[in-house]
């Protein structure tokens, strides 16, 4: 065991770090030995490995003597263990690859567990159905920003994916005949929009995401995937534009681990926590997007963020539109039913984006409620309590638990809330991460992405309900299949510099001993409030520009961060600061992309540019129209790069893929005006 003592009497810090690292190396070495868990004495083996198999991991101080590094070698490494991550991990193990799954949360605690809606698939159990109609609905829902080959792939695989899940043991609800019961949901139609409502949404009682995650986790235990639970992935190990693995911090004992693998799959989820009000867990911090950004690769369509108008202030849970449907009204600080001014006919029953924008305008003009005047009220106490209890059972419970109000006496504080991020790491339909070079899509070797973190772009500018769970399983499987097709288990690893990952460790060290003046929580709150007021539903040029400047300033304040915990074992202060760095990278990309996109499309709606700007004006006949050149229309994907040091965002664009995988089998849908 190497532990060079440096005679450096400059500070007490060094002595304690040396002592800590000596202790650390001892512990790291002991866990690295290949012994069955039961026989280990003194150090408990926390990491789950089903047959007691543990790869011989080598310790070295190639990066730093203060931070000894444990090197692991695998055929594939998956970062993130939510729906997509687990599907990819066991898909790879099933194909015979030696897979590691690195996750900062225990798999069943990932945010997928909160998805309670359903999963769409054209099984045709309730009526005659065809996946091509599902394809049409999804392309239309994405406002023609979705890549039609990826959408073709997803909707064609959907029935097989759902049947596969059902074979894994997921307890879908059934019809009388025993087939999977499907209900109407999420903008699904028959016969390319002309045949009425389609019933495509399969569910498991009211906990589909929970059941999905547990089914996948249970299934994954059949294969010998090595789980590295509570390991925070710091960065990708890139060399010559190729991804050679991941470097991670073990939160439990503070050791640094390098996972070398020929194939890396990123499935880290969304970045809801950049906003003040979001439905996502505190752990949705866009770590994968940030890792990819730091590696110099672009992120795609970051400005498309899906909002819901009535989310409970502080808690982030969404209140159903049914409340307004049953007679609930939105009121501002003056007690006025402000929706009458914005939508005189529909009033509170106007569409979601109109309601969200109206609420934001009221708040911006100073008529918000609460001590900071940053939200509005949803009033239900004027309705008879029995009617409320009969039509909306459970709402009083929800309001009491999450808002602390008695819904029959007080109004519920609400504000527009982030629910889903359509943007993320750009991939092709096979799940391979791509970058755009000289007008062509180029695959980044060794890197794949799936789930909410990726943007294969099936959701385009707007996600349809019940499509995201489908996205997880289909593209998780796609990543595994692509890797299995192109690589073999036991392939020799390409060489890697011994000091790979040293910038990540240097950053970690700097954050651990940071002694500026602003706490992590302060900087994070500043960022969240800025994003909520400038990059939320209400977007205009001046507001976005102001937001971009403020975000630039906030990005710089990270230099001045102050952390308190100097230890290395379970240092949550450090991990939160790392997450904050990741969040900031996501936030600057979101707001800058939104500022540049001068049109309204899907979830990105601007007051100053209310129309969609495509290459042709699709509201008029195409005859005689001149096609606009690429740089003058907006039917294209945004690719954003960030200079890590300055926080400056550079934007490039890549065209939308308009052709499906097989034009004979399923013709692509030409763009049209999107109206429901």
């Amino acid at each position, binding site marked *: 065991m190497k532990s060079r003592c440096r005679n450096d009497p400059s500070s007490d810090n060094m002595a304690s770090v040396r002592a800590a690292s000596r202790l650390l190396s001892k512990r790291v070495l002991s866990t690295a030995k290949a012994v069955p868990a039961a026989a280990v004495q003194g150090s408990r083996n926390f990491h789950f490995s089903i047959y007691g198999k543990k790869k011989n991991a080598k310790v070295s101080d190639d990066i730093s003597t203060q931070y000894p590094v444990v090197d692991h070698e695998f055929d594939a490494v998956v970062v993130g263990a939510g729906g997509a991550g687990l599907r990819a991990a066991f898909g790879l193990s099933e194909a015979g690859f030696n897979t590691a799954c690195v996750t900062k949360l225990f798999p069943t605690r990932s945010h997928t567990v909160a998805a309670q809606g359903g999963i769409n698939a054209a099984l045709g159990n309730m009526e005659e159905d065809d996946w091509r109609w599902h394809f049409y609905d999804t392309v239309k829902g994405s406002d023609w920003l979705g890549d039609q080959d990826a959408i073709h792939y997803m909707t064609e695989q959907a029935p097989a994916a759902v049947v596969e899940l059902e074979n894994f043991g997921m307890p879908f609800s059934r019809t009388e005949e025993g087939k999977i019961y499907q209900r109407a949901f999420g903008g699904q139609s028959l016969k390319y929009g002309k045949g009425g409502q389609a019933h495509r949404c399969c569910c*498991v009682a009211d906990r589909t995401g929970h059941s999905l995650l547990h089914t996948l986790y249970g299934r994954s235990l059949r294969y010998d995937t090595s789980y590295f639970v509570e390991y925070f992935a710091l960065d990708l190990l890139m060399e010559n534009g190729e991804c050679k693995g991941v470097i991670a911090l073990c939160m439990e004992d503070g050791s640094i681990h390098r996972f070398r693998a020929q194939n890396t799959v990123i499935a880290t989820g969304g970045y809801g926590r950049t906003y003040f009000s979001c439905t996502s867990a505190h752990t949705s911090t866009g770590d994968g997007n940030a890792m990819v950004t730091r590696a110099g690769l672009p992120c795609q369509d970051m400005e498309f963020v899906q909002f819901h108008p009535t989310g409970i202030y502080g808690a982030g849970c969404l209140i159903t*539109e049914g409340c307004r449907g049953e007679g609930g009204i939105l009121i501002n600080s003056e007690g006025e039913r402000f929706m009458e001014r914005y939508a005189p006919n529909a009033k509170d029953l106007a569409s979601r984006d109109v309601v969200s924008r109206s609420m934001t305008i009221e708040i911006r003009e100073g008529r918000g409620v609460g001590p900071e005047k940053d939200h509005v009220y949803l009033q239900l106490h004027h309705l008879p309590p029995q009617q409320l209890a009969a039509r909306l059972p459970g709402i009083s419970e929800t309001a009491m638990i999450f808002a602390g109000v008695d819904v029959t006496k007080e109004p519920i504080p609400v504000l527009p809330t982030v629910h889903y991020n359509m943007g993320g790491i750009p991939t092709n339909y096979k799940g391979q991460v791509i970058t755009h070079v000289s007008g062509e899509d180029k695959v980044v070797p060794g890197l794949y992405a799936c789930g909410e973190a990726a943007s294969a772009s099936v959701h385009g500018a707007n996600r349809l309900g*019940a499509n995201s769970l489908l996205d997880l399983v289909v593209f998780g499987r796609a990543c595994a299949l692509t890797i299995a097709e192109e690589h073999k288990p036991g392939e020799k690893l390409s060489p890697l510099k011994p000091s790979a990952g040293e910038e990540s460790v240097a950053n970690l060290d700097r954050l651990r001993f940071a002694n500026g003046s602003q706490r992590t929580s302060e900087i994070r709150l500043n960022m969240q409030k800025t994003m909520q007021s400038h990059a939320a539903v209400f977007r205009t040029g001046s507001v976005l520009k102001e937001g971009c400047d403020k975000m630039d300033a906030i990005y710089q304040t990270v230099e001045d961060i102050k952390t308190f915990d100097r230890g290395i074992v379970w240092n949550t202060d450090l991990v939160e600061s790392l997450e904050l760095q990741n969040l900031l990278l996501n936030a600057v990309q979101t707001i800058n992309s939104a500022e540049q996109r001068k049109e309204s499309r899907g979830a990105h709606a601007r007051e100053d540019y209310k129309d969609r700007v495509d290459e042709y004006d699709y509201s008029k006949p195409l005859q005689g129209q001149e096609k606009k050149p690429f740089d003058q229309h907006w039917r294209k994907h945004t690719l954003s790069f960030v200079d890590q040091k300055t926080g400056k965002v550079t934007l490039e664009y890549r065209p939308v893929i308009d052709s499906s995988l097989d034009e004979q089998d399923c013709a692509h849908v030409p763009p049209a005006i999107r109206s429901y």
Partner: protein
Amino acid sequence: MSLLRLCSSGGRQLFCKSPAVEPLFTGCLRAASRAVNDKEPLKKAKTPKGRFDNLEETSKDVLEKFPDDVNPVTKEKGGPRGPEPTRYGDWERKGRCVDF
């Protein structure tokens, strides 16, 4: 036999006096009553275990389970409890919207 009866009656009196001594006597009482075939009703202690044995006291969930878990209108087996979640266009449960 008589000793056990004494023990049980003594236990009942002590129940009113000191709650701390109850668990001891409950154990003794249960063991005793198993032998005497449940002649008198068991006095359960106010321990969590005791409380869960009284199913009537558990609060009813606002969303009631369908008989046999089959929705009478749509004939769906194993579906969501309570009214149809998608009736307002989004997926609603207990007033919370979870998907839209």
